[in-house]
Structures are given as C-alpha cells and as structure tokens.
C-alpha cells in the first residue's frame, strides 16, 4: 500500500529563483549555506532520487540488518526472512520512537523499547501490549511500519527512493553502469565484500564533497603532502597520483559527465596496461615488500595480477548524490546538516569463492587493507580541511559567487558523443557544471514522495 503524503510541506520550487542561484559559470553561496535549501534537498534530492544505502555484503543472511540513513531519515536496511531487501523507516508507528538502536545485527522482530509494540521485519505490526485498551483494528495497514517503496540493487549496491515516479534504478544509473561493471569485473567473480571503514566527517555542506569527487584540478595542491610523502623513497617519482604533475590536461586521463548527475574521472589510461601495472605505482604500505616477494615466489608471473588487486584502481565513479567508487573504496556522503557531512570510506575485500586466487586471498586482503588506509589517512583529511575552509570562507555574505567555469568557452575542449556523454581534460570543471544543472532541475521539481506499508 502506498501512502500519499498529506499536510503542508515546503515547495522547494518557490523558495528561490533557481536560475539566478545556478548560472552557467557560477553558483551562489546560498546553495551551500542556506538551511532552507538543505531542508528542500532532503526531499527533492535525498528522497526523490535513488540514494545509496548500503552493500549486500553488509546483510548477507536472511534477517540481517544494518541501520543507515536516507537523507536524515533513520532507516533499518534489512533482508527479511524470505531474502527480500527492505528499507524500513526506523520509527515506531505508535509514538515515533526509533525501533532499533544497534548499528547491525540479525533480528526477525523489532520491539519498540518505549511501549512494547513489536513488528516483524517485513514491517508488519506483530503485537501491541494490552490490545483490549484499543477500539481500533490493528489489522489496518496504517499501523505497519512505513518503508521506502522502491529498493533495488545493482550488482550488490543497494539504492532506494521515496519517489514512485523515479525511473528504474538501471535507467537512473544509465551510462555509469559501464565503469561500475569494469570496477567490479577486475575483482575475482566480480564481487567485493565490505570490511569496515574509515569514517570521517567535516563541517561543511555535502555538495562540497560531491563537487570534489570528480575534480582533477585540486590534486597536486590539496594532496601535495601526500604526493611528496609517497614518493620520498621512490627511485622514480611516479607513485600514486603523480601523473597530475606537470601538465595534467595533456595526459590521456579524462573526466566524463555520464548524465543524471553522475560523473566519472578515468585515470586508467595514464597507467601501463599490463599485469602488475597498478602495483608498480602503488605507494608503499605495511607488508608491501613481504607480500610482493612471497606471492612472486609462489605464483611467478601470475603474482602480478594478484598484486594489482591490492592496488588502487585509478578511477572516481560518482553516482549522484551520495556514492563513489574510487581506488578499492566505496565512499558514501551523508548529509548531517547544512554545514556538516559524514564521509565514510568503506573498505572492500576480495572474495574468492572458487579458489581462483590459489590460496592467496587472505594475503592479498591483508595487503589490500593497508593500501586502502593510505588515502583516508594522508589525503582525504586535507580535502576535508579545505572543504571546511570553503564553508568558513562562504560566511562572507557580500561575496556571493563560487566559480566552476574551468574549461568553459574554450573551443574543442569539451566534447559530447552520440550518447550525450560529455568528456573533457582531467582538470576541467565541466562535470561540476553539468551535475549542478541536474541538481537545479531537481530542486525546481515538485516530486510526490510516498511511503509503503505492508498489507
């Protein structure tokens, strides 16, 4: 049963003249600072579009759950007794109390700690204490837990939307599925498993992180300390993202805008396409030399492919509004308030169900954990410091504009192919201009959000 939502709500479309706030070459500071815009984003973006909630490996068994958020809404993401993935509002229908306070677990029933109403993990009301004190019929679906009406997965990645009119997940992802497939298909059996995370936050608007996710312009400046660090002992200073040095726009890497707000920074063309090519530019990590020698001794030439699995895949695959695949991470942006955002870097491990790695899976994962800790420790913290300093700078009320016009107006620089995919040199801000246009379109809209209840 779909509940049509009633009652007054802010019509985002009437808040501002959105064409004034988002122009071809610049955006107004208010889109990062205004609490009313943030409130509207919680419906028009984190509600009306497909939002990433979690990975299937986090709820592998029936009745497994994790607690997450859809925008600011607390959600229990679970696999019910029949294996169906559901996103329940973590909210008792009686008084609004959250039903589940743990971050993960396995449960068939959620019982409200406040008055003892209990629910099956399908969302159905199971029992109410002392029901003879009620005149109502508890079979009425309105007493079942509200849930997100549309939950779907793409190859293990679970997305959800409250918008019955949204396109299918597959159509929403569109062209970005190609790099997602390539990212997965380099893993044995095309699979990964989430294995904890580097969890960070910053005092700044969530879009600052999404703006940055495709940005090739900031790398040698914001990450200067990282580039110097990881090359301090290298014979040839080519570790990590060193290819951004010199003249990055003439390198074969590129950025692409893939539609629906998604963008893709593809740095793979900079790396020699050969077994061991990624490992050759991976920065030093705890155990690097040991595992490299051990695997080469046991596997000979085959070791190079295995070592590449511990190496960072040089891509940034950004799915609007809150999901990124980069290196071996799944990065998730989670708005907390207009000026606070959680940025969680989930680590991924290789899964080798059929023994294709010849017993090397535990070793390569041990190494892969360490390579994945590098960027959050020594790179991301500096970006987040810079995002916080943007938010501070935006307190200058009278200086209203933020520019995203790199590459705009230079003939031949930005290309569009027959599928509408836009490509440009790696430091170009075309992807930013394009996704913010999509953001503007969504903010002008009046989506009809709905929740569902079991009948």
């Amino acid at each position, binding site marked *: 049963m779909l509940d049509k939502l009633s009652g007054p709500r802010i019509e985002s479309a009437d808040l501002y003249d959105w064409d004034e706030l988002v122009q071809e070459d610049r955006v107004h500071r208010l889109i990062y600072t205004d609490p009313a815009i943030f409130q509207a984003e919680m419906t028009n973006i984190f509600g009306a579009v497909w939002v990433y909630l979690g990975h299937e490996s986090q709820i592998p068994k029936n009745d497994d759950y994790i607690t997450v958020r859809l925008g600011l809404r607390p959600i229990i993401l679970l696999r019910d007794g029949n294996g169906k993935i559901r996103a329940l509002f973590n909210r008792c229908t009686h008084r609004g109390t959250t039903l589940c306070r743990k971050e993960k677990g396995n449960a068939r029933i959620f019982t409200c700690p406040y008055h003892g109403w209990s629910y099956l993990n399908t969302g159905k009301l199971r029992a109410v204490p002392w029901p003879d004190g009620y005149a109502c019929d508890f079979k009425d679906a309105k007493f079942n837990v509200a849930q997100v009406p549309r939950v779907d997965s793409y190859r293990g990645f679970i997305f959800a939307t409250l918008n019955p009119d949204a396109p299918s997940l597959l159509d929403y992802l569109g062209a970005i599925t190609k790099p997602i497939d390539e990212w997965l298909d380099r893993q044995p059996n095309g699979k990964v498993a989430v294995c904890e995370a580097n969890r960070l936050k910053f005092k700044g608007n969530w879009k600052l992180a999404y703006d940055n996710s495709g940005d090739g312009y900031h790398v040698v400046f914001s990450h200067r300390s990282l580039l110097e660090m990881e090359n301090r002992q290298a014979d040839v200073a080519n570790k990590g993202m060193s290819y951004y040095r010199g003249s990055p726009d003439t390198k074969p890497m590129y950025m692409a805008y893939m539609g629906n707000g998604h963008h893709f920074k593809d740095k793979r063309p900079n790396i020699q396409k050969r077994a061991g090519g990624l490992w050759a530019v991976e920065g030093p990590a705890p155990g*690097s030399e*040991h595992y490299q020698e051990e695997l080469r001794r046991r596997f000979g030439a085959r070791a190079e492919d295995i070592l590449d699995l511990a190496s960072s895949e040089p891509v940034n695959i950004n799915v609007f509004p809150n999901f990124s695949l980069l290196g071996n991470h799944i990065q998730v942006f989670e708005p907390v308030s207009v000026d606070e955002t959680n940025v969680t870097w989930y680590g991924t491990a290789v899964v080798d169900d059929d023994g294709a790695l010849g017993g090397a899976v535990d*070793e390569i994962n041990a190494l892969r*954990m360490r390579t994945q800790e590098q960027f959050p420790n020594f790179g991301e913290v500096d970006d987040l410091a810079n995002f916080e300093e943007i938010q501070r700078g935006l307190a200058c009320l009278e200086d209203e504009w933020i520019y995203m016009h790199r590459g705009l107006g230079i003939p031949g620089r930005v290309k569009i192919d027959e599928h509408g995919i836009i490509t440009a040199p790696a430091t170009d801000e075309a992807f930013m201009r394009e996704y913010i246009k999509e953001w503007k379109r969504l903010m002008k809209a009046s989506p009809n959000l709905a929740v569902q209840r079991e009948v």
Partner: protein
Amino acid sequence: MTNMQLTHDPSISSYYVNEKFYRRLVENFTDWQKDDLAIAQADERDRFRMLIEKEARLLDQLNFDEWLAMYSPECIYWVPGTPDAGDPRREIAISFDDRRRMEDRIYRLRTGYAWSQAPKSRTVRMVSNVEVFAAGGSDARMVRSNYLISEFRVDGTRYLSGWCGHRFTRRAGRWEIEVRQVNLIDCDQNLRNPSIVL
C-alpha cells in the same frame, strides 16, 4: 626478543608485516587484561607509567624524532576502527602503521602542505589508570592506560578519549614500545579531522 641484526631496514622496506606477525599481534592483544597477570610492584608500574607519560609529552611537543626513538625498529601504531579491535588482516583500521608508515606520517606533517595540520593542532594529553601486566615472558609487558587528549585547532577545543594498549619489549636492557593500540571510545563513528598522532 627482536633480532638486533635486521636483514632489511624497516624504515625503507616492509618485510616484517607478514602472516606470522599479524597472527602473533592478534594473539598478543587478546586476553591479557587479567588480574592474575597484573603487576603490583610500585617501581615496575612506575617505570611504565613514566614511559607512557613521556610519550604523551613528546607527542604534545611534536617531538616526533624522540617519539619514534621510543619504538622498536619493527613496530606498529594501531588505531582500530571497531571497539573490539578486530583482525587487521580482514578489516580496515583507522590507522595501522608499520615503522615506515609512521615515518611517512611524520614526513607528511613536516612538509608544510598537510592542510589538515596547517595550522597545527595544540594538544595536551592526560594519561591515567596505568596497569601493567606480565604477558609474554620477562622481556615483555602489556600496559593498559586511559587517555584524554584536549585538542585545540582553528575553531575550538575538542576532546578525544579512550584507552591505550602498549606492548613493551626489552631489547639490550632497554624497554621499547613494540605495539601501541589506541582505542578511541568513538572509533566506529565518523571522526572530524583525525590527523594528529593520537
């Protein structure tokens, strides 16, 4: 005891972080906080309390060279991302640095371009509840201590707290830190700017 003649310089290459090392590490950090292993002698407890207080002072003073000198050549600085520490072979940690990565961390902070530490945080650390446990023979000690780090940076002061597990080993008569496990009470939550050495 650690071999004095190392085949590889652990500042240059990382050979010691291997399966055997991880296995021993995970074993060392299980089941040592037991009353029957606790050491009651005041002078021995004092020895380790002073080492831990010295470490806190060196970190507050950003005296990283002397801080590193307190560690064994083959050492680990470990900040787990889950309250039960987990198995670092299968889980991402907040930090899991071997000797080389500890030196990387310091090198980066000294470049002047580590924006998360420009300007630098000012910290004071308080260490208390130091308990010493005899685990792993006469040349090894496990030490549990609580800490409270007050950190001032840019827009205010915040507090980081938790407990540390130190594994000390005696090498040529000197007690060195082999492993330091820093357990933040909010290690599994989103942390703002965790860029200081904890």
